[in-house]
């Protein structure tokens, strides 16, 4: 009797408990794109280059009947431009004369222009550093005197992207140094990756990406903090082609397999103001940063983001100005690293954070096959045993039914 009760209980509870978990079962995104990279397309020696290198990486990800263009450029402030066209033969045209001479407007085009469905740009504008003497890790409540002059990324000198470009893994690394002494032995780096299909990054936070996403990993290595209690804040800005509403949300996630002890996902989504329309693009990250290159659990430090702020001035990214021209607005976001009680930057002189920039809805986490397998076995075997045992016992009872009369005592 009580077995039946327990059986019913378990059969009842399991769907109830696993309904939220079912959302995490892998639906399998099998969409693939063909990715090709080219650096500085159309640039030849006849174009007089200004001081420094030109780093304009064009990634072309072709799908069945659409193309996704990622343009990663370090002119001005480093930026990632995402353009989605509904033709599989769209291409990038750069007017280098205009682009290099400073007359930026219209110097970058995706042709044919009427095939452009969606475009947006994410710009890394500033790196703030503040003196956290009281160890609160809360820059919003600190006086302006705690803040050091910010590093304007448009004033950084960047290394040649050609040396770190990898055509097989579709990755590139952009490292630069600021104008001050702090960057004597260190650099500010952005690692760009494009993907052909669904997968996960190799190192923490192992963000789940698909063919419609690209990943930008930011890290500071060897940069000297300007005080013994330095902490950093990274400022990002985002511009869109239409009047879209952008909002930042932090979702709870029960799966922390790939980012141990982090149960949240933050995403900055852009959708038309008519809210029933689907999400057109996103910037997604896990609110965690790492303090060493090969981090262990102790090296994880949570990060927080500020509210979206409409920006008065447009970012000084050449890429943005070249493609979008005038008449667009930007929203800014500050990402604050570390919380009160965590070690300061100078404990390891290293900080890294990863963000995903992509088209459509942001990817949702799913359980790994191992977790699903263990739970299936763990719950299935007892149920099977109960069923088999119950059947066996019933059969035995049937067989031992007396053949007509009761035995006399």
């Amino acid at each position: 009797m009580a077995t039946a009760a327990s059986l019913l209980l378990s059969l009842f509870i399991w769907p109830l408990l696993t309904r939220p978990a079912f959302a995490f079962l892998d639906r399998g995104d099998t969409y693939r794109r063909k990715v090709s990279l080219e650096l500085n397309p159309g640039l030849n020696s006849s174009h007089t280059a200004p001081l420094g290198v030109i780093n304009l990486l064009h990634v072309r990800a072709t799908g069945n009947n659409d193309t996704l263009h990622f343009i990663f450029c370090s002119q001005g402030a480093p930026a990632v431009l995402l353009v989605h066209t509904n033709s599989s033969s769209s291409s990038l045209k750069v007017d280098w004369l205009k682009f290099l001479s400073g007359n930026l407007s219209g110097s970058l085009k995706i042709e044919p222009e009427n095939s452009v469905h969606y475009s947006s740009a994410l710009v890394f504008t500033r790196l703030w550093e503040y003196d956290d003497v009281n160890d609160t890790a809360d820059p919003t409540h600190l006086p302006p005197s705690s803040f050091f002059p910010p590093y304007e990324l448009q004033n950084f000198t960047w290394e040649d992207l050609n040396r770190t470009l990898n055509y097989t893994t579709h990755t590139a690394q952009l490292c630069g140094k600021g104008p001050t002494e702090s960057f004597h032995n260190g650099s500010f780096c952005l690692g760009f990756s494009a993907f052909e299909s669904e997968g996960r990054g190799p190192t923490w936070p192992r963000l789940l990406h698909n063919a419609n996403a690209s990943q930008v990993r930011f890290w500071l290595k060897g940069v000297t903090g300007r005080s013994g209690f330095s902490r950093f804040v990274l400022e990002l800005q985002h511009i869109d082609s239409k009047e879209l509403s952008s909002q930042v949300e932090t979702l709870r996630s029960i799966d922390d397999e790939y980012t141990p002890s982090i149960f949240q996902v933050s995403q900055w989504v852009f959708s038309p103001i008519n809210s029933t329309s689907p999400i057109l693009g996103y910037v997604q990250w896990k609110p965690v940063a790492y303090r060493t290159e090969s981090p262990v659990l102790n090296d994880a430090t949570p990060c927080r983001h500020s509210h979206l702020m409409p920006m008065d001035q447009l970012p000084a990214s050449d890429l943005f100005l070249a493609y979008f021209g005038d008449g667009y607005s930007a929203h800014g976001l500050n990402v604050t690293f570390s919380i009160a009680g965590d070690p300061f930057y100078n404990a390891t002189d290293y900080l890294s954070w990863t963000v995903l920039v992509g088209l459509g809805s942001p990817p949702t986490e799913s359980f790994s096959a191992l977790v699903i397998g263990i739970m299936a076995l763990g719950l299935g075997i007892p149920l099977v045993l109960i069923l088999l045992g119950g059947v066996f016992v019933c059969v035995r009872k049937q067989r031992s039914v007396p053949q007509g009369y009761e035995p006399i005592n």
Partner: protein
Amino acid sequence: REWALSDTDISSERQSLMDGEGDSFTSRDGGSSNSMLAICDPTRLAHRFVVLLLMCFLGFGSYFCYDNPAALQTQIKQDMELNTSQFMQLYAWYSWPNVVLCFLGGFLLDRVFGIRLGTVIFSILVCVGQVIFAAGALFNAFWLMVFGRFVFGIGGESLAVAQNTYAVNWFKGRGLNLVFGLQLSMARLGSTVNMNVMGLVYHRIWDWRGSTGYSTLGVVLMIASATCVFSLACAVILGYLDKRAERLLNKEEGKTGEVIKLSDVKDFPPSLWLIFIICVGYYVAVFPFIGLGQVFFIEKFNFSPAEASAINSVVYIISAPASPILGFMVDKTGKNILWVVMAVVVTLASHMMLAFTFWNPWIAMSLLGVSYSLLACALWPMVAYVVPEHQLGTAYGFMQSIQNLGLALISMAAGGILDSRGYLFLEVFFCAFVCLALVAVVVLYFLNLIRGKGENWNVIILEPFNSHFLF
């Protein structure tokens, strides 16, 4: 076996508790007992009440200090710069000596030291172990901390055996169940107080010293060792009172009466092995979880450290009142296996709730507390039913030995899993072990049904609740 009583013994026991007089003690001089104060007379209730108090506090220090790592997880990991795998060694090394000591505890207390000296020795070991643990923190030497836990473990489990032997010796036939219940409650009170208080103590010391770091941790752990000193004092006084009672009443020194014969292992029936599997599978999903629980609640459910500690102690808080009540219920209905099934299923549900949902964890932890108490009341008496009396000592010793082995191994595995794959995978890992216990209990149920042994488990076992990990 002299410790197994039937229903009639229990009712006569209740009656004799009312009388306050026992028939197992005889006084040397029938008249002289009247001239002493009630509190000094070993035959009178007042004196036995004092002895009861001392017995209860005997284990307080050990239980208080056992879960110090869980209460100070963040601080220990930060101050000693440990990862979770190293942190869990503090628990694993408590269990390692007890894999062997479970078999030796009774022997040491009966033949080598005697109950009185043995209790004092084990109390000293508990005290010394905790002091070494604290010293390790003071000198920033993690190996010393682990060694301290090892010494603490040698003393802790054997002290529980001694505590129970005292209880039987003084209270057999006079409310022994009640005494066990009280001892259990005091023990779990110690665990609960530890969980809720140590974080605050650390904060106070931090404020006072103005800095954090391993020396602050060392000071805090030294303060915790004061409870062990207190328990040691109780052990000494108890030893004196026991010796005095022996002199006045001409009674025997208490014996555990445990007989361990390792050759009996080959005679163990399959039901007993299934019970062992249930025991291991279940307890490795509870104690390591509590050890790592505080940070889990902070990270996943955004609790404050104080709240996370409170919810971590819920299992112990519930266990204190629930165990006697559930024990009574299990005794009355007699259907132990079904209660074990229910306890395992509820624990599985609780772990799945914590893993796969964001539902309020108070629910899951309360369920875990109730099912944990239920399992203890239902599972351990089952051993007496499947094994003949003369093998009971060996069977229980084996069960505790395997339990400690499982705890030692899984504690370290849990730490490693958390470091590499996070809390969800850790919870799934625990669920897998509870499922193992579920498989074992289902097989046991059908085995029992097929063999037609019936479901009358109405045997009440009192003595061998010797393990820290039992209640």
